Each structure stands twice: as C-alpha cells, then as structure tokens.
C-alpha cells in the first residue's frame, strides 16, 4: 500500500519535468498540465474523503430505525442520483449564494462541495449494501456479549461492511476523478480546463487533448492500484490469496 502511495506521489512530482521533454505544443505548457493534474487530484481527494463520510452517514440514515432519518437520507440520495452532476456543480456555485446570502464560496470549494454531495449519494448505496450483507448472527453474537449499540456497530458491523463496500467505493472514487472535470464549468483550473485552453491557444487539438486524456488514464490507473493494495490489506479472510 505504501509502495502504491509513493508511486502516486513520484508520478505527480515527475509529471511536469517529464512533459517538458515533449515537443510543441506540450513541452512549453508542461507546467500548466502538471498544475492542472494536481488540481484534479486535490479535487478528487477532498471530495472523495468527504464523500466517504457522507456516504456512511447517509447509509446509516437509510438503515436507521427512525422514520425521519430514513426519509431524509432517501430524499438526498433520490435528488442527487436523479439530477445531472453538472447542474449540481452550477447550483452550488451560482444558486446557493443567492439562497443563502454570504455563502459565497471560491470556485474550488464549491466544486468540492458539489462533487462530495454527488459521490456521497452513490457511496451511500455501496455502504448500505455492505451493511445489509453482514449476517444477523454477527450482531446477535455481539449483543449477546453485552456490547452496546455503538460498540456493536463500530467494532463488529462497520469494519466488515466497509470491507464489503470497498470495491464499489473504489469504483465510485475512480469515477469521481473523471467527473471532477465538470468543475471546469465554474472556472476551476483543473486538468480538462488546462487541456482545452491550450488546445484553443495552439490550434492543435490532437496532441493537447490526447495528453489530457493520457494524464487522466495515468491517474486513474495509479488510483486503482492504490485501492487494490488497500483491498488486499484488509482481506483478512484471505479470499483473494
């Protein structure tokens, strides 16, 4: 896992210098590309992390004993999954400051909020599937030992449910990295934005957009590798060994 993380870091730092070796129109714009890639990665990491927390909270709401909590969680998931991400990104950036005066957020923060809310709804379903997959015997054994509600969840149910949810969470995370390109719409200078700007300046769409796509491919591949390493680490039942 550490090796995969190091590989990701090395790739990011080496990306600029590597690209600068390339001929026109990539080489002279290498630093912009690597800056954009870094912004894309930060968008993904922030939204991905917040999205996991949101997903767990919403999954808990969905499986709650309380009717109100179930309704709130279902409403959130219904709205987010039923509307386009682009609309959500625009809404957070343009409409929320009108609805809540003073909630003027910079473009990056707005994008993080919209992306987190979006991936959170999808994560909620992944985590819920994990929670439902835990056999009843596990919670009964924990309760029979005298463990309280909180410990039954934290020590017994959640660790196992999270592990089951992990492959789905990873695929949501990789999808999020690609979806973060929609932050372009509110002016965040992320990878797609950079690629399109340079394309427009140089009138050379093929090398610029191909480079953009390749960088995404590199990032998602590394990300998948990193997640595989995590999955392997938590695979205590040895199902994959």
């Amino acid at each position, binding site marked *: 896992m550490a090796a995969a993380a190091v590989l990701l870091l090395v790739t990011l730092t080496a990306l600029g210098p590597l690209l600068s070796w390339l001929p026109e129109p990539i080489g002279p714009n290498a630093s912009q590309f690597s800056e954009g890639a870094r912004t894309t990665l930060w968008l993904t990491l922030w939204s991905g992390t917040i999205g996991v927390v949101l997903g767990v909270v919403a999954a808990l709401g969905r499986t709650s004993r309380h009717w109100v909590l179930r309704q709130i969680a279902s409403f959130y998931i219904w709205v987010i999954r039923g509307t386009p991400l682009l609309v959500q990104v625009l809404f957070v950036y343009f409409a929320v400051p009108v609805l809540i005066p003073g909630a003027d957020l910079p473009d990056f923060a707005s994008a993080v909020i919209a992306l987190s809310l979006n991936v959170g709804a999808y994560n909620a379903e992944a985590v819920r599937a994990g929670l439902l997959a835990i*056999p009843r*015997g*596990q919670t*009964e*054994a*924990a*309760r*029979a*030992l*005298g*463990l*309280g509600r909180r*410990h039954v969840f934290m*020590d*017994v149910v959640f*660790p*196992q449910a999270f*592990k089951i949810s992990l492959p789905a969470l990873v695929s949501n995370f990789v999808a999020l990295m690609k979806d973060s390109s929609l932050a372009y719409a509110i002016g965040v200078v992320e990878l797609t934005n950079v690629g399109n700007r340079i394309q427009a300046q140089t009138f050379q769409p093929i090398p610029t957009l191909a480079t953009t796509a390749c960088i995404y491919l590199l990032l998602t591949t590394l990300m998948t590798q990193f997640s595989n390493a995590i999955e392997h680490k938590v695979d*205590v*039942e*040895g199902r994959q060994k």
Partner: protein
Amino acid sequence: MSAVAAAPKNETLIDLQGVNKSFGTHQVLRDVSTAFRAREVTVIVGASGSGKSTMLRAINRLEPHDSGRIVVDGIEVNDDATSLQKLRSEVGMVFQQFNLFSHLTVLDNVTLAPRRVRQTAKAQAQQDAMELLKRVGLQDHAHKHPYQLSGGQQQRVAIARALAMAPKVMLFDEPTSALDPEMVKEVLDVMRALADGGMTMLVVTHEMGFAKDVGDRILFFDQGRIACDQTPDDFFNRQDSERVRAFLGLVGSH
C-alpha cells in the same frame, strides 16, 4: 473453571413465569413457566420449531417475549439498556453457527467484550483470553482468523469468547448441529468439562448421549410448551409419554 459459577448450588438463577411469544400468528412459546437453578445442567430437547431455541433467546433478550416475566439473577429481562447490558454480561451464549467475528483474530474475538464492556486493560484481557484458549485447547491458534479454523475449533473459540465475560450461566443453542460428525466430540468435551466445573448450563441439543451423561434435567418442548421436565434417567428409561418415545425414536437414542 473455579472463577465462574459463584452462586451457591440450587439457588434459582433464572425464573420464567407464564412466558408467551408469537411470530405473527404462530405462537412459539405458550405460557412457559419454569426455573433454572445454579450449577445445574438442563438439556432442552424437542422437535424443530417447538420453541426451545426461542426460550433461550428470550432469556438474553435476543428475542423479546410478548408477555410473562423472565428474571435472571434478580435482573428483570426487559428493554432497559442498563439492565440489559448487565443481564447479557452475566449470560453467555453459544450459537449453532458459531458467529465468530470474521474480521478479528481468535484473540481479539475473545478480548473484545471484556475490553469494551468491562473496561479490562488490553494486556490483562489478553492474558485472561490465553488462559481460556488454553482451556479449550486452542492457545496455539490465538493469532489466526476464524476462517483458518475448523468448525469444531471455531465453536470452541466461541465458547471461550462467551466465558471471557465470566458469565453465571451459559446458553448453548444447538452448539454441535452445524458441525461435521468428527468435530462434535471436541466441542462436547469442552462443554462436559465446563459442566464438571460447576457452570450453570442450558443446552438445546439433539445429542442424546450428552443429555444422558451430562444433563441433570431434561426439558422436552412440544408445540411451545414444556411437555416433560424429568431427570435423564426417568426421561430415557421410564418414559411413559407416547409423544416423547416417538421423538426419541426419531433422533435415534435407543
């Protein structure tokens, strides 16, 4: 085995009065009244669906009863969180499907409840757990995960896990029914040793040999009622109930 079962012999530990329980329209417990005394091994038999497991599960409130009273060592069995936790730490339970926590090592399975419920320090809990694992013959497997163990070994870990809370009574819900035949004996041997050590036990089982040898008392459940409450000798050798004789014929004890 001496640390457990501090209660004097014959003192009533569990008291059931007029307990009823239904699942939908199906009534699984009908007006069940009985008492279980300290250091007594009660073997509960009967056809499947006769209510024997439900009674065990009602005693530690995994299955809330509809009416009647259950009192365990002075604790009223109800939904009050504080008394429920006290009740459950005094009542150990072993399940048919073992229900070990699959993401935890054997040692962590055994230490989890003492650490969380009794706030025992980790080192102390591990020391106690190793002692228990030695008793069930699994001290060499402490750092394995459940999937690396056989069914019989898993069930012995489950017994050690329940004992780690130093319960006053142990409930066994068909502890050998999910085991391959060659593993039944190792689990029954552990239970036998536990009984010899004076543990109060309620055992739902189809192992008639165990019932005969280890049981102090046999309860026969039929359609949600206690149809017989006898000593093993009377139950097996002087049985006048046609219903019980038919049951014994089916489980093949004679």
